[in-house]
């Protein structure tokens, strides 16, 4: 028994390429499955699996094999896993990627090998601009778009001044820049914190209070968002300096943030109550299949990634060697997205609506996210001009 256990592992390492692709569609999925942000990766995997269920676990009649790899939220590990998927497993597509820095590190391996990469979350500005590629698509957004929508909303509300706080990595810098691109009031101060290790924000909150700004804007995905909201309300700032957010309150953090999240607005391209049919099915089936869990925008984007891949496979009748035809098909965004229909820009980033979401109590007393209004329609990122693809 124990011998076979070791042999299995060694065999996987040595002989994994000998299993010939042939008649299966192979998809690699890189996300974070260990450490504190593993909840995000799990949600993406759940939704991706649900999408495969909905497709009958086949694409154009061929069985689908998905290989999940853990990037440990580290750029160098993500890069290594991407190489393994490309070289050893010889996958047809790679999807996933939560973190901008992991994606940026992995990009070259996928593009050089001409493997299609579908980012189901990360959207660094370089990807939309100079590093755009025929082989790279996004079912999420460019980082700036969501905070830019939040900036528009703050203008609508007549907010005069803001203090910005965010983590010091690719997405953090993009997010704060995105808010500044649309917000018309005054930016009083701007603080970056060490990512992902810094968890105590007391120094930054004290500074925000002392700055005299009218409001605070933050970007803290995952557990950091829980900690930030905890400390923000403990500091008694909730009544004095209203908080505006991007990617800080979602269905994963909400059970931990609890009442701290009530009244904290966020912007998002997908909310669980969007009124299209495929979204209703998705949310209902997700809650049925994974009891006690609720789908998130991460999951919705992963679901869309599976559907986008399916549309390409169906268009070439399962012959995944026809890269140009698959690319042409994917550019049409010819599938039923959970956010309603959208178009791809020249850089393969969606042109889409952004909604204002708020936290409310359900009929059954649970906290959940609700769409309040549409902030902006058919929004395109501001880097598409820098992309050489036309």
């Amino acid at each position, binding site marked *: 028994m124990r011998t076979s256990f070791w042999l299995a592992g060694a065999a996987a390492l040595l002989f994994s390429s000998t299993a010939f692709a042939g008649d299966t569609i192979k998809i690699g999925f890189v996300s974070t499955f260990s450490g504190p942000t593993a909840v995000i990766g799990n949600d993406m995997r759940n939704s991706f699996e649900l999408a495969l269920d909905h497709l009958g676990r086949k694409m154009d009649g061929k069985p689908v094999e998905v290989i999940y790899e853990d990037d440990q939220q580290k750029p160098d590990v993500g890069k290594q896993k991407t*190489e393994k998927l490309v070289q050893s497993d010889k996958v047809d597509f790679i999807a996933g990627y939560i973190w901008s820095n992991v994606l940026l590190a992995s990009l070259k391996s996928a593009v050089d090998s001409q493997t299609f990469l579908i980012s189901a979350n990360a959207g660094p500005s370089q990807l939309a601009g100079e590093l755009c590629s025929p082989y790279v698509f996004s079912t999420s957004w460019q980082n700036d778009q969501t905070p830019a929508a939040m900036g528009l909303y703050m203008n609508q509300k007549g907010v005069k001044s803001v203090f910005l706080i965010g983590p*010091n990595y690719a997405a953090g810098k993009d997010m704060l820049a995105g808010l500044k691109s649309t917000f018309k009031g005054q930016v009083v101060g701007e603080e970056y914190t060490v990512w992902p290790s810094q968890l105590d924000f007391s120094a930054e909150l004290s500074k925000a209070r002392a700055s005299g700004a009218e409001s605070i804007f933050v970007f803290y995905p995952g557990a950091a968002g829980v900690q930030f909201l905890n400390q923000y309300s403990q500091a008694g700032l909730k009544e004095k300096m209203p908080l505006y957010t991007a990617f800080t309150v979602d269905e994963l953090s909400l059970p931990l943030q609890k009442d701290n999240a009530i009244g904290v607005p966020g912007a998002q391209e997908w909310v669980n109550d969007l009124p299209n049919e495929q979204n209703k099915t998705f949310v209902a089936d997700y809650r049925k299949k994974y009891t006690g869990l609720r789908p998130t925008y991460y999951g919705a984007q992963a679901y869309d990634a599976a559907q986008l891949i399916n549309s390409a496979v169906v268009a070439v009748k399962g012959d995944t060697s026809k890269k140009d035809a698959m690319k042409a098909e994917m550019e049409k965004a010819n599938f039923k997205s959970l956010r309603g229909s959208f178009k791809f820009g020249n850089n393969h980033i969606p042109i889409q609506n952004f909604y204002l979401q708020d936290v409310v109590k359900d009929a059954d007393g649970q906290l959940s996210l609700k769409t309040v209004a549409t902030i902006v329609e058919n929004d395109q990122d501001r880097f598409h001009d820098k992309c050489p693809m036309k």
Partner: protein
Amino acid sequence: MKSQLNVSSVVAALVVAGLVLLPVYSNLSGNIFILTLFTRIVILALSAVSLNLIMGYGGMMSFGHAAYLGIGGYAVGILAQEGIGSGWAQFAVAIAVSALYALVIGALSLRTRGVYFIMITLAFAQMAYYVASGLSRYGGDDGLTVYKRSDFGGLINLGNRVQFYYLCLFCLLAVVVLVWRIVNSRFGLVLQGLRSNEQRMQAIGFPSKRYKLACFVIAGMLCGLSGALLANNTDFVSPAVMYWTRSGDLMVMVILGGMGTLLGPVVGAVAFLVLEEVLSQITEYWAIIMGPLLLLVVLFGRGGIMGMLGRLNRG
């Protein structure tokens, strides 16, 4: 010299032979990834060998050895970004800067000993880590993609997997031979004398600090070389390669393989990294097996793998 044909040297020879023949297997089976994986292992084995020089023979427990991986890597990455693609220049800078860094921190750190030495080397490596994180022009925390590998003219093409692998393996074997020569030279004997009794050696009249510093600088240069190779292998360099956990990994490789033995670090690096890869293929919870395994090696296998093999020979 009865120990020439014992189990541990047979295993070490097998490991080396396996490494030499690996590209043939990779080519026959079409498994490219195993070559990519082992290129990484060979490079990290090179750093482990350099760490073993100061830890195993010099008695200096450095907890900041990964700093050189970063220095070497950033030398390649920064020069490539600034348009200097020549491998000769990149590698020379990598090794020279590593030597300079080792000289400065060595001179300061060698004032302390024991655990304090462990911690002060850690402190310097962490500072190097944060300096790299602050380089906003070169990607800051996110790291830097190396779009073009080091260019050695017509001599060797680093873009070719097999050629690059053999370059790394050549470097590793050359460094092992170098360490062997050092250890058996007068310099090396003095060094080992210092490790067992520094006061006595000083009393005889050896300037202990100068010997140790020289050893420290040599090890730094060798690890800087491996950093330059690593950046070429991953086409990417980020502050993460200098983080203290990476220094810890290198220490674990050395101790696991057998500290103070010539090929122990190579065996340790292969064992550690292959185990990590194999276990993570079997289960997401690989660390729950790896952790107690390390504990058991310490409790029951003194002297690491080479030590255990040595006892096997005797028993």
